[in-house]
């Protein structure tokens, strides 16, 4: 056996000693990095569990803990949000921070942990940011208007399998905001593209298709997100591997909606005309 025994914990598991640079910020301040050393981190711990260990250490030392967002810890809720060594959700593509395990880091490594950085996501405290701009975008059109009551017969609305698959792929977006954080323009186009596609390609989404597209893009712009310049960073950092296809289709749907709006029927003949 290789001599790695001094890095094993009482369960015989490999552990890491880490140097952490973590962002500290309270409301109304500009914030700064704080350096901490953390030993005996099991490689099987998730990144959030490592942060829990750091906070426990801080409590024992009588210091303030680091605030960070989390909820499901199984990669489905979209709450966890940390930029780890410059990468939203860390170095492993296609996973959320909560599903990132410490075995992806080296012993003695220095890890920089920052919040999502974007004008539209102001820092609440430390690593927690306010992502309600996403909620506003959803409120603007991320729904279909139907009379809820007894469910209709499933086969009333036929949806070809490829269409259902495409809608499901788009619906995989968990609204975490890593696309915005990774984008050098602070653009939310991957998120908005995913949400618009998910509904715009299904029969149930058709009645509100144009209204939805225009309203969600307008809300996105008003929230202070940047403009897409096709870097592609969002796709490379999205924990659900949503592709730029949704942005291309969003662009197409937006163009379509603007043209339809421009040439929409004016109804009755104008006074004086015939």
């Amino acid at each position, binding site marked *: 056996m290789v001599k790695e025994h001094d890095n094993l914990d009482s369960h015989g598991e490999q552990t890491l000693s880490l140097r952490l640079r973590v962002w500290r910020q309270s409301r109304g301040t500009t914030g700064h990095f704080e350096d901490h050393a953390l030993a005996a981190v099991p490689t099987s711990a998730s990144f959030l569990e490592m942060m829990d260990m750091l906070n426990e250490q801080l409590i024992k030392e009588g210091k303030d803990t680091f605030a960070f967002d989390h909820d499901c810890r199984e990669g489905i809720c979209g709450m966890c949000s940390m930029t780890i060594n410059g990468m939203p959700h860390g170095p492993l593509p296609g996973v959320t921070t909560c599903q990132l395990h410490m075995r992806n880091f080296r012993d003695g490594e220095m890890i920089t942990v920052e919040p999502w950085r974007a004008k539209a996501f102001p820092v609440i405290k430390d690593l927690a940011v306010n992502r309600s701009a996403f909620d506003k975008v959803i409120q603007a059109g991320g729904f279909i208007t139907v009379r809820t009551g007894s469910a209709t017969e499933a086969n009333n609305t036929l949806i070809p399998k490829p269409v259902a698959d495409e809608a499901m792929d788009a619906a995989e977006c968990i609204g975490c905001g890593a696309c915005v954080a990774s984008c050098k323009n602070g653009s939310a186009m991957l998120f908005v593209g995913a949400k618009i596609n998910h509904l715009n390609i299904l029969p149930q989404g058709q009645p509100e298709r144009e209204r939805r597209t225009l309203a969600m893009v307008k809300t996105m712009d008003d929230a202070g997100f940047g403009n897409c310049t096709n870097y592609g960073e969002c796709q490379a950092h999205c924990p659900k591997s949503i592709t730029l296809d949704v942005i*291309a289709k969003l662009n197409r749907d937006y163009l379509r909606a603007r043209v339809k709006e421009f040439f929409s029927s004016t109804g009755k003949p104008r006074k004086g005309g015939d």
Partner: protein
Amino acid sequence: MSACSCCRPASIGKKIVMALSGLVLAGFVLGHMSGNLLMFKGADAINAYAAWLHAHPGMLWGARVVLILSTVAHIWTGVLLTLENRAARAGGPAVEATRRATLSSRTMPYSGVVILTFLVFHLLHYTFRTVALGGQEFGDKVYEMVVAGFSQPAVAVFYIISMILLCLHLSHGISSVFQTLGLRNERWRGRLDAVATAYGWLIALGFISIPLAVLLGCIK
């Protein structure tokens, strides 16, 4: 629509203006480059081509108006995009990691500004003929004027560098146009990126061949 939708046009609207105006400019550079290659056919060929252009002022001015409008629209949206995007990023992370954004995509505003500087110089040089020609009058003798212009190494090198930056700009821009107009997907992305890079090099090498030929003495 907001009260001031003209000062703050929709994000995708700006992108569409940028893409369409860029497409006009990209089409223009292909035509311009092809015409310039007549330099290799000799003085008579290019001088006759220039005389033909000047004999059709309607067509010439029609093209000029479209180009001026496209350039203004392209620069206007480019400036808006760049400023808004800087603000939206809020400084960005302290550690910057890039997974796939290409060099050309990250340098669009810079390559654009160099191209603009080049454009101003180029117009003063060969259209208004007020700089770098030593006060000589060439009239309809375009061939002689170009040879005189590129016989100065500093001028020729500036043209060559600018065209390499144009290649960089186009290699992101052309593929970007398809994305912006909604005509791209995972399957076509790689192919369109290759087409864009090839187009950029085609344009750049076509233009560069002329100052290079003058510098090397192949055209005199």
